[in-house]
């Protein structure tokens, strides 16, 4: 059964059409990678899923519940929005940790505010997550005391603390020095091994090939190709994808 079903998502900013009818679905426990050149709409798609942006058309269904319907005209309440967002987690390219809080507080802030569990349990869970991303000893440090790779791993733990059904990553390693990407990719890989449902926008082709169940190639607001990593990387059908992949193999 599909956890996520996206149908005919269209989004324009003013006159620029950024998404021109996106359809895909995602099975529970699977990893979907999205690749594509700059400006093809990958970030916009993730932002629509996370209700940071609203599509003009189309529907988004999570576990058979329609959480977004572009044809609906009634106003979305704040409470509804917040509930919708909890289906997804989002890890940003630029980490966006909260600088005034320690690593541990970054992770427990939302669970405590939203009374997900008791403060003690939230803390215990945060410490467990920190252990999973290999940063137990940094619990009481501030974000400015961490490397980019460590900050991104905290951001992953922070997103996981809210138990999202689907975790999205927007180029999680693009802001990192090359020698730091490995530690972050390793964490995402271990999440995949643990059957976390994930959507990963990435420019790390090798990683996408290894870790994904499905790969989507976006081009100019549409899904130009979609398939298993072997199909997409091994046997690209469109010229655009061939050219795109060629630009990475140099």
């Amino acid at each position, binding site marked *: 059964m599909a956890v996520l079903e996206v149908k005919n998502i269209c989004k324009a900013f003013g006159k620029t059409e950024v998404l021109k009818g996106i359809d895909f679905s995602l099975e529970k426990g699977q990893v979907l990678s999205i690749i594509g050149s700059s400006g093809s709409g990958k970030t916009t798609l993730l932002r629509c899923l996370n209700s940071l942006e609203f599509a003009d058309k189309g529907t988004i269904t999570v576990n058979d519940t329609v959480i977004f319907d572009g044809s609906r005209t009634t106003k979305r309440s704040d409470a509804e929005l917040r509930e919708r967002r909890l289906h997804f987690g989002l890890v*940003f390219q630029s980490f966006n940790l909260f600088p*005034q809080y320690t690593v541990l507080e970054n992770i427990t802030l939302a669970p405590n505010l939203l009374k997900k569990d008791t403060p003690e349990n939230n803390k215990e869970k945060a410490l467990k997550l920190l252990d999973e991303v290999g940063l137990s000893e940094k619990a009481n440090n501030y974000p400015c005391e961490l490397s980019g790779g460590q900050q991104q791993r905290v951001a992953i733990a922070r997103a996981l603390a809210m138990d999202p059904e689907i975790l999205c990553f927007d180029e999680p390693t693009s802001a990192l020095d090359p020698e730091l990407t490995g530690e972050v990719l390793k964490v995402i890989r271990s999440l995949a091994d643990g059957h976390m449902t994930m959507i990963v926008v990435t420019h790390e082709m090798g990683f996408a090939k290894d870790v994904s169940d499905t790969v989507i190639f976006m081009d100019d607001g549409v899904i130009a190709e979609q398939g298993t990593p072997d199909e997409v990387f091994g046997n690209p059908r469109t010229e655009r994808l061939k050219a795109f992949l060629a630009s990475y193999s140099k």
Partner: protein
Amino acid sequence: MTFAEITLFLANGFVVSLLIFAVTLLCAVPLGLPIAFCSMSRFRPVKYVAKTIVWIIRGVPLMLQIFIIYYVPGLLFGNPIFAQIDRYILRNFDIPNDGGVLQLLLTNAGGLVAVFIAFALNYACYFSEIYRGGIESISKGQYEAGYVLGMSKSQVFKKIVLKQVIKRIVPPMSNEIITLIKDTALANCIMIPEIIKQAKELAATKALIWPLFYTGVFYLLFVGLLTILLGRLEKKLSYFKD
């Protein structure tokens, strides 16, 4: 007059200066916030009204604003409200006649109220611009990181944005606060007996000019104290960087 007597005479005036300082801060710090929010409002009329008010109040000398607030109610509406306050106090209070602080305050209550209003409005507008700058300098990513975790707008503002804003506005606010204590001297334009008015009084009645320069010591000591306190606050917020 002995040196000690002159010092006391000036100190009484400085208490008036400090009172203007304290009341202004107490009113303007919170009042700046709604003005800042209005000037950032997405509802255009609210935004333009707020921006116009800020433009006028920042664009006109504070001394002129004191004159306007003090005299206009009487001139325009035939209701000299501040003089009435004075008359009311004269009738209903036992005003001591010892040249002390209480006498200074009670005999000038109406004018002081006008000064409080003018200063509070003026500084609220300056503060609102500092707040606005601070709020707008926080990256969109901080808000969005809160939203995707399911936090509400007010939670994001209170728990994530506010402290970062405070950290950023402490230095410019410190500047304004230090300017404020010196601006209190403007109150002497409507004869409020703040410290410089007191020194002028000595010049006029005792032909002493040096106390006027001596007032500088009071300001310097107080600004020194402020610098230390504000520096401590800044340091307290230096545990995080953004």
